[in-house]
């Protein structure tokens, strides 16, 4: 099923209803009547998109916008592809299926995700996979793959699952991580792994500032890193290669539980 953008929306648009499980069994006319506005001015899917009949399990959104919020919210099966940018909370609470953002995604992409795959072909905003205010746990399963860079606090409170960032990451990457795996191909900003309890952060090109609360445990050839490399090889050959290098292991954050690790591949 295709949704072609008519013109850039005049208000932020909540695309939460446009997921396969909600659209299944609906006619084009019914879909066009779904409200997607976020202001007092009423806005429907038909106002924003030309809706083309097709299989609702495979959704293509032609034309993106930084105002497209909550695209793929709660996606549980099927696939959604946005050919362009996305706004906040793309793929929030996803539990299955595949969401692809062809451009840049806003803050909280993959927030609280439980399963499935979120692929962002551009950059990701801050708090990638992270929890919203008041939530105690961020992403708890699935895979996020960012081809570009990610903003601050990528993987905040990550509980389980894998976040792959091919480019740079902002400050506090993997902050308060509970467990899971965060891999950064480029450089990380200040204090990666800030207050992490468990989990693994791989950083390809070091960090602007590493916390002194991480203890250097020396360089190792880790079997677990080979397993990780094999698991992510299909998604990112570049990051898989980093996992196969000798890895300097920094244990921490000793200011918290201290059972996590930052892995620094030998240059």
């Amino acid at each position, binding site marked *: 099923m295709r949704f072609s953008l008519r013109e850039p929306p005049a208000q932020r648009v909540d695309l939460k209803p446009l997921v396969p499980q909600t659209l299944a069994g609906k006619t084009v006319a019914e879909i066009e009547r779904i409200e997607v506005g976020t202001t007092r001015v009423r806005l429907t899917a038909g106002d924003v998109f030309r809706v083309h009949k097709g299989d609702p399990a495979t959704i293509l959104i032609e034309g993106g916008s930084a105002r497209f919020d909550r695209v793929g919210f709660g996606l549980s099966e099927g696939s959604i592809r946005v050919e362009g940018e996305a706004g906040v909370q793309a793929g929030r609470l996803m539990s299955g299926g595949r969401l692809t953002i062809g451009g840049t995604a806003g803050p909280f992409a993959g927030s609280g995700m439980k399963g499935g795959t979120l692929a962002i072909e551009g950059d990701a905003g801050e708090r990638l996979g992270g929890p919203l205010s008041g939530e105690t746990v961020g992403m708890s399963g699935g895979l996020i793959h960012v081809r570009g860079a990610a903003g601050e606090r990528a993987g905040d409170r990550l509980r*389980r699952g*894998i976040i792959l960032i091919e480019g740079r990451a902002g400050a506090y990457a993997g902050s308060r991580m509970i*467990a899971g*795996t965060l891999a950064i191909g480029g450089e990380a900003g200040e204090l990666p792994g800030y207050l992490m309890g*468990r989990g*693994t952060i791989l950083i390809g090109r070091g960090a602007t500032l590493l916390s002194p609360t991480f203890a250097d445990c020396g360089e*190792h*050839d*880790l*079997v*677990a890193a*080979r*397993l*990780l490399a*094999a*698991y992510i090889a299909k998604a990112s050959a570049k990051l898989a290669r980093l996992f196969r290098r000798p890895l300097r292991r920094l244990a921490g954050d000793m200011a918290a539980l201290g*059972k996590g*690790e930052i892995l620094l591949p030998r240059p």
Partner: protein
Amino acid sequence: MRELNANGVAIDDTFAEAFDMRATAIVITAPTARWAAQAAETMTGFATSVIACGCEAAIERALSPRETPDGRPGVRVLMFAVSTAELQKQLQNRVGQCVLTSPGSACYAGLDAGDDRLKLGDAIRFFGDGWQIAKRLGARRYWRVPVMDGEFVCESTTWLTKKAVGGGNLIVMGESPAKTLAATEAAVKAMREVADVIMPFPGGIARSGSKVGSKYKGASASTNDRYCPTLKGAVDSALTAEIASVLEIVIDGLTSEVVGEAMRAGLAAIVEMGSEKGASRVGAGNYGGKLGRHHYHLKDLVR
């Protein structure tokens, strides 16, 4: 009794009687094939018979780096026991004492599905004394236990199958110990090409086949006197005058089909060698068909 004769080898009109068993499989890897094999051999060294070892286990086959989860050389080990509880106990004791301790080793599930799960790393992880780390990748979960040469990586669980069969067998008889051993070795070699089976005795061969019971209290099994060549004049022997040596191959498989397939492959190898160089007669062990529900008739397997 003897009806069939192929290439000079008489095939007894009898059948092997085998039993339902619980089985599991694990994959052991190491930095080199030699050390993967070493860990597996240590783990399966005293695992010839459930009579006194608690389980029957052996290396099923060597795995190339492409076939293992971590891309290192490995081996696949099959383990059989009479109950789930015993299998669990044997698995964790043997992995804990023989694989965990072996340099550079790692251990993974060797079955992708089954009837139930057995603890693997979940039973060993406590060795980490709190420093162990779990890593979940998709549906699989691994434990990383710090050890003195790095980390012991061990998958949290492996699968158990209740469809396994233990006790498939061939009794190989020849005119001399050398000829009998040559034929039996050839049979074991052919059987090792069959997937999902093991021959748990030394080199796949048992020379002390047993019967149920004993004249002595407390012994559940004793020598199979009817097949002992040195007693052939003294007991109700199953052996004819020309037989000077008897060896047995016991086969355990993950399914009944593979046990039959292995017996077929072994018989073919014995027949191919012929009585000039190898065995002059092949039989099989059974208990009258009353104890085990799996019967493998030699006449069906040799045709």
